[in-house]
């Protein structure tokens, strides 16, 4: 059963367990995909939501072939969850989407990740532009310790040389329930 066929059913195991290279004694991991259309899933005004389609993705950590030939589609304006035990490759898949995987020493990825009709792994693609277009939230929060909370909230704008607007920062903090 491939991811492409299955994604309409929306809640079952998508990748075969043997798709992940793990030490033999580890129980075979399953990654499942769940989808929902949350009310708050709308893209901000002026920005059209985009689809992400993974095609024949393979990823390695050195010699460890972690993701084997994965294809999966993420529809715009839908929340999609990847579910599976630790070490089964959920984060690796996510890190391949915005090309963060290759930042680790010895790690590499092959295949296509289509952002609408653009392949982020195509020749000549600027990884910095890819990461600007595809946001990412980490499992563990990692604030920058040398700057203020304001600067941490504004970091996304600051790091990409965009104008920092105090009202935007306040709105973001209010939205997260961190502003009194």
């Amino acid at each position: 059963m491939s991811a492409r066929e299955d994604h309409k059913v929306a809640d079952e195991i998508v990748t075969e367990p043997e798709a992940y290279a793990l030490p033999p004694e580890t129980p075979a991991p399953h990654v499942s995909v769940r989808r929902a259309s949350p009310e708050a899933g709308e893209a901000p005004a002026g920005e059209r939501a985009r689809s992400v389609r993974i095609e024949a993705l393979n990823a390695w950590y050195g010699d460890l072939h972690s993701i084997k030939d994965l294809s999966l589609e993420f529809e715009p304006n839908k929340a999609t969850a990847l579910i599976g035990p630790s070490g089964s490759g959920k984060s690796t898949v996510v890190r391949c989407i915005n090309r963060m995987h290759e930042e680790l020493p010895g790690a590499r990825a092959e295949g296509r990740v289509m952002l609408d009709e653009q392949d982020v792994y195509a020749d000549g693609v600027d990884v910095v532009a890819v990461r600007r277009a595809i946001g990412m939230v980490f499992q563990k929060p990692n604030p920058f310790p040398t700057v203020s909370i304001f600067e941490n909230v504004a970091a996304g704008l600051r790091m990409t040389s965009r104008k920092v607007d105090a009202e935007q920062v306040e709105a973001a903090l209010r939205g997260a329930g961190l502003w009194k």
Partner: protein
Amino acid sequence: MTSLVATSAARRRKDRVARAMLALGTGIALVPLGLILYYLLRKGLGAWSWHFFTTDPTGSFLGDPGGIRSAIVGTVVIVALAALMAVPLGVGVALYLTEFGRDGRLARGVRFLIDVMTGVPSIVFGLFIYISLVVTGIAGSFAGWKGSIALALLMLPVVARAAEVVLLLVPQSLREAAFALGAPRWKVVFSVVVPTALPGILTGTLLAVARAAGETAPLLVTAANVNGTTLNLGDRMNSLPAQIFQDVGQAQDRLVARAWGAALALVAMILLLTLVARLLQKRNRLA
């Protein structure tokens, strides 16, 4: 049922012996340190006076030998220029190694050369500058700036290694956080990595400076030894280690006393730098 409280007498005895041996070892190691400090203070403090710090060596055989003003000024100026050259270069090398070269062939080669350079005796750097800049007569013969270059060569590997160690302590997750926001590499380095590592880099730098300030050999053959105070780095320049070296060789008690005073002054200066380094270390977010 075994007792949870009492340890067997044999074990307690072994513990006491082991503790005593370690304490003894530490004590023995501290003896020379204590003696050095004791003699420095006893012999050096006597030489200290307002006059001692505010006059230059007179060079006259009879009468007042003068103080060590030129040596203090020389050491500060020469070492400051050396730091100005070595620190940006050394930190730059470290940034290349940790952020760009990483485990590449060039980075590994550079790392090896840095280790080799750390082990080169200081006189070799002095002789290198002596042969390439002093003997060839480039811009005169002996000069303060030539001494600075010799010290900078000495400091460079120390600064680079210290900075590399601290930069490697910056959590990878911080770099990733910045990369995932779409920050270009240079921005990640200068607005996340360097600020996070800064206290540690400063500590490493100050320790390198402190080490260079005490070096005698490279200065003797590059900046030489004069009596008068000068701020002109193009001239011969006095320095504390050179002054001490010259004074201890003299047959006059007054000059030897000045050497003790100068040695104490040098130790005090280095202690001050080390204390500042310690203070910065405490504020280090990574340690």
